[in-house]
């Protein structure tokens, strides 16, 4: 574990973001090129079959919560988000800092979600409908409700980014705390308990909470896009 700083723009978290970004890009490009070359008449085998099944299962799962035209437009974005987050939140298993434990990276996701919702609104509902939504149902309450709705536009993506940030940060803080307690001396028993504590901590905070947070972010993005364009 490296020392943890709350508001540092180019910290280890940003570095590991760039590493994940490059690795995933290369991986996707290679797999995409291989899938393009496949023969559509034959059944695919092995690793490529797994990739195809993954994308297929994802499509089936998300299209339960979204209309078809919206899903066709946002499906690729949502899949990119879930793959990146699932990788990023479990990255500390190989020794890198989880990227989402930096506020800058988390707020980048806030900005992305904000623009995704705005693009969905511009694409799928009219401006008049949007203004109606902002003013609220009851017209004479509009002067009160309009500022509240305007805050709600910003606060929804802000909450999503911040939630993921603090969740990942709490895992990093607790792991750092336990490791610093266990590193007072280097006795045999303490080293052994450090290994087991690390096993438990990383199993719970990285794999379990990390994957759940990635899933929750995906679901909230899906639901917010659906909600913003439905009404």
């Amino acid at each position, binding site marked *: 574990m490296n020392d943890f700083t709350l508001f540092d723009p180019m910290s280890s978290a940003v570095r590991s973001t760039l590493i994940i970004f490059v690795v995933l890009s290369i991986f996707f490009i290679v797999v995409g090129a291989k899938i393009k070359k496949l023969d559509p008449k034959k059944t695919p085998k092995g690793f490529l079959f797994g990739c195809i099944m993954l994308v297929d299962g994802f499509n089936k799962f998300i299209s339960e919560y979204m209309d078809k035209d919206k899903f066709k437009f946002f499906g690729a974005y949502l899949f990119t988000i879930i793959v990146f987050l699932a990788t990023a939140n479990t990255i500390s298993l190989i020794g890198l800092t989880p990227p989402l434990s930096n506020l800058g990276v988390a707020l980048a996701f806030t900005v992305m979600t904000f623009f995704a919702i705005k693009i969905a609104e511009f694409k799928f509902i009219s401006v008049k409908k949007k203004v109606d939504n902002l003013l609220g149902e009851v017209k004479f309450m509009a002067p009160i409700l309009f500022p509240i709705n305007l805050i709600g536009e910003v606060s929804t993506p802000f909450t999503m980014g911040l939630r993921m940030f603090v969740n990942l940060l709490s895992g990093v803080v607790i792991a750092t705390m336990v490791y610093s307690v266990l590193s007072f001396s280097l006795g045999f028993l303490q080293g052994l308990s450090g290994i087991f504590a690390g096993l438990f901590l990383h199993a719970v905070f990285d794999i379990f909470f990390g994957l759940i947070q990635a899933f929750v972010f995906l*679901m909230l993005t899906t639901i917010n896009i659906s909600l913003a364009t439905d009404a």
Partner: protein
Amino acid sequence: MFETVFSTMFRFAEVTNAGLAWLGAGFAVIAGLGTGIGQGYAAGKAAEAVGRQPDAQGKILVTTLVTQAVAETTGLYGLLVALILIGKS
């Protein structure tokens, strides 16, 4: 008795800005109380729903995860405020 206790306390411990910041951090994480109650309530209702309708377990699980994450937010804000206060000192 209390006078002696307080007088000894204040003789050894003076009130500093850093100390007040740590005290505030301690108060801020009380926000976890409401979060715990809310999440427990949501989980209990989800268990009830699964008991009543075991076929819909997958959908109930997804809904529960999302609602629990939403309920968790206030407690996380408390934690964030506490961390910021610790960083100030």
